[in-house]
């Protein structure tokens, strides 16, 4: 099996692809394969990683034209044609080079973010939008001496969104982000909705109003790629649709 890796650094006119024949090991992940590439083929290959356990959200990449975490994705099932995710197509995932999915695993940087080198993208814009939604806990009951009481059902509902690890995989997988670079994107909006849902905060729609703008809730075209690619099972599209509905019914 082969790894076909996107290579780019400052000064190159266009990116190139390096192919590397891998030692086949059972359970080899794309991240493991990249380390093998680095050790045996070219140790100048650059990519980000940290935890190896799908918790830190550092190794988001485009793998076989689907945005995923390199540490979670195994090569063998990919080559067997499994792990297919049917996404609404957009330029960022269209085929640009010849590639044989039965023999090769194609690894490229996440779409919609500028490439710094090889597989490393500049996440600044992603985090700028995340910070735009003011992801900061605000409570009416500031600094109580003791812990609050909470309904366990509420906790469960919130968990669906607190699971987000800010890996930007949904940002790279959203067709709207590609068309409209000012769109806040699924992760930031899901995060905002998480605070709106939190029963410890106010129950009105004031939180949602932060993204009640052209490039906020209303820019989503409901493609649903975000939910399909999220490695942690977060459904940003549900958050966006719920928020939009709540705002609409309030305006009526």
């Amino acid at each position, binding site marked *: 099996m082969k790894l076909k890796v996107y290579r780019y650094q400052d000064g190159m006119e266009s990116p190139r692809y390096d192919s590397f024949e891998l030692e086949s090991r*059972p359970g080899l992940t794309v991240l493991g394969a990249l380390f093998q590439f680095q050790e045996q083929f070219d140790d100048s290959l650059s990519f980000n990683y940290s935890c190896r*356990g799908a918790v830190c959200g550092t190794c988001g990449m485009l793998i076989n034209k689907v945005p995923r975490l390199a540490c979670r994705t195994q090569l063998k099932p990919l080559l067997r044609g499994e792990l297919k995710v049917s996404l609404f197509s957009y330029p960022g995932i269209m085929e640009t080079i010849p590639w044989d999915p039965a023999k090769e695993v194609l690894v490229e940087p996440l779409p919609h973010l500028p490439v710094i080198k090889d597989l490393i993208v500049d996440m600044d814009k992603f985090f700028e939008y995340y910070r735009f939604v003011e992801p900061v806990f605000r409570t009416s009951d500031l600094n109580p001496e003791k812990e609050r009481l909470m309904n366990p059902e509420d906790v469960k509902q919130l968990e669906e969104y607190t699971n987000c690890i800010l890996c930007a995989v949904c940002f790279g997988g959203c067709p709207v982000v590609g068309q409209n670079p000012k769109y806040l994107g699924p992760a930031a909006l899901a995060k905002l909705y998480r605070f709106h849902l939190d029963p410890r905060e106010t129950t009105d729609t004031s939180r949602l109003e932060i993204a009640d703008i052209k490039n906020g809730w209303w820019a989503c075209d409901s493609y649903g790629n975000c939910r399909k690619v999220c490695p942690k099972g977060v459904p940003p599209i549900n958050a966006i649709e719920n928020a939009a509905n709540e705002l609409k019914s309030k305006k009526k």
Partner: protein
Amino acid sequence: MESKIYECDVLIIGSGGAGCRAAIEVSDHNLEPLIISKGLSFKSGCTGMAEGGYNAAFAFVDCDDNLDIHYQDTLQGGGYLNNPELARILVDESPERLVDLENYGALFDRQESGELDQRPFGGQTFRRTCFQGDRTGHEIITALKEEIYRREISTLDEIMVISLLLDDAQSKVQGAVGLSLKDSKLIIFKARSTILATGGAGQIYPVTSNTMQKGGDGFALAWNAGADLIDMEQVQFHPTGMVFPESRKGVLVTEAVRGEGGILLNNKKERFMGNYDDRMELATRDVVARAIYNEIREGRGTENGGVYLDVTQLPAKIILEKLETMLLQFLDVGVDIRKEPMEVAPTAHHFMGGIKIDKWGRSTISNLFAAGEVCGGIHGANRLGGNALADTQVFGKRAGKAAALNASKSSLKLDLNHVNQIKNHLNEIQKEGDIPPHQIKKELQATMWEQVAIIRNEDGLKNALKVLNNLETRLKRMNVPDGSCYNVYLQQALEAENMVQIAKLVTKSALLRKESRGSHFREDFPQTRTDCKKSIIFNKNKGFSFTNR
């Protein structure tokens, strides 16, 4: 090599739980902290990877629990090697620090009554571990990060700190020098106080639960600056890490699995823990890790070199709700833990040893503070599961406060000679050689795993020291070509230097401790000796010494 200069009141190295909590405290004192990280901010620490929970004796579930019992459990679990003053502070302040986290927006699981839920963990008399499913650390680091955004605290990432800066007299820390990994430029950080919150050194072992960044940089920085390091031989091996596949070897399988009722089985499907400890699967981590190691060594392990951890007898609902991360983590590799057992084996997890601190996180060098796993003494010879997250918050806050107070008093006087020495070292390191830096790391890891891991003896340790000394001389032959954008060679070479130094300290300290206590087990000295109830302190300038416990 160009260099940028930053100046701040308090420089915090590391953006994990302890570094973040320290930064919040500094900002509470109206001073400016600056947080720098080797990886991406908030993503490269181990806090976010912690799964099982945070110990605080609220007594919400078991009403007989209290701070004294938490203290006793902590000392007993630590083989009474703990600095009792630090352990006392840990348990006393842990509940308040959890309330702080909730005020930053963190979410913890609740009981029907609305009160916090608490689960059983190893070595604890009562159920006292607060949690959020099996993503407790993720929830904590997320809340801390958001609080840091609220306060608009500055962060810089992808900077590897390569040296602390000292004054002319070599006695006071004045900040640090970092290498920007993005462009290989030097950055000088001038700071009135510096806090090390860099975590441990799991990466000196080939099998570890730690993030890839944890090569003991903070230990090495403190050591080189002349700070005392304490009990470096005490390395905790978490009993349950993944054994399969290779790419995920060592990744943590949380203690919460056993807390929720998971049982350990050998290849004969015998529940073997009863042969080792009455507390069965919930004995302390040192005991469970050695038991598993022994089962494997005596031929009762699985084909992949582990034992089974089984939750198939638990209701699927519990698995889905309380162990969801584990369920997904194993589904990824083709194992449905609702239907079949996991395979697990010990993995290097936590350094109980580290920078010697006082109750305010002060190191033995002026202006240098430390918090979190990089410190030693709190957990003694073995840390209880759930005490590390608490440690980051309790001692993060304390170090932050002390560093802030210190910063308002101390002045800055940079020694330019020292800066030049550091630049020269970087220039020397970048040259053609015949050994790739990752090879040094690999050889070091293999030696540490074979001879300085779960079961140790004098011959093995002496042999390891020989290998490490040899690696040290080979550091000069590392191949480090120039390259300005993400020079992987340079980063690896600097890490290899730190790892050799720390591995040597762990080994030397293990040779000195001629007994078995907590995580340190010597097969040639299998008993715990009352005359050895003392901490081992190493100092670059003064050699080693002991302090009674």
